[in-house]
């Protein structure tokens, strides 16, 4: 693949999350991804951009980079505030499902911290079998 990936600035404005999803879906479609896998990547993008705007409270920068066997999505924000694992409870409606979805749907994910913010990344494999 000679496409080197995309970086998009996702400012805090109406329609931001839908736009991040559209951009991701369009990029993966160009790379010939099956829709079932596109949906997984788009869901994780929606979670990560939502967390950046809502919890970090800053604009977000969305990276979509091809991997040999999938795609790495990464969302950078400008807050050093760390992620917090919450125990998601259907009974309590307390939220906390975002990181749970990363655990289940990403082949791997992580957080990179710098003094000026952080980057949360997740790898989505291109074929459903080998996740």
């Amino acid at each position, binding site marked *: 693949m000679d496409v080197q990936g995309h970086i998009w600035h996702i400012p805090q*404005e*109406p*329609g931001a*999350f*839908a*736009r991040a*999803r*559209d951009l991701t879906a369009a990029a993966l479609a160009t790379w010939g991804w099956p829709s*079932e896998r596109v*949906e997984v990547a*788009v*869901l994780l993008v*929606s*979670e990560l951009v*939502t967390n950046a705007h*809502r919890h970090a409270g800053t604009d977000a920068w969305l990276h979509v980079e091809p991997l040999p066997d999938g795609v790495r999505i990464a969302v950078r924000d400008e807050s050093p505030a760390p992620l917090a694992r919450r125990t*998601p409870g*259907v*009974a309590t*409606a307390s*939220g906390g*499902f*975002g990181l*749970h*979805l990363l655990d*289940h*749907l990403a082949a791997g994910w992580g957080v990179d911290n710098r003094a000026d913010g952080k980057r949360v990344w997740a790898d989505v494999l291109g074929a459903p079998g080998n996740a």
Partner: protein
Amino acid sequence: MAVREENLDIEVDIRDDATAVLTVGGELDIETATFLHHHMANQFTHGRRHLVLDLSALVFMDSSGLNVVIKGSREARDKGGDVHLVSPTPAVRRLLEITGLTVTTPLHNDVEAAVEAIRQAGEEQA
């Protein structure tokens, strides 16, 4: 780039004093979730404690959408009713399964099956 229109369509169909069917189409995320919650809360205010959410035209839902469905279900149960989900797309069904929602929330293949289940549960209680 022009600002992307948020897109969530909700149609409400009242079946009886206690039951409403909400047909939810489009995308359910943190921006549109409040809109769905308003619709659900409005039905509760009017005495409808059984809500059927027809999700067959919902093309996207993330954990923010899920949180609102959970919140609505809890409110329905507080009133002695429940929220029933109908025919989610495969992507939405995957979200419901991974997060364990399918364990606590009734899922049906079509709206009439959901309405029938609500009716039967009512008769058993009576």
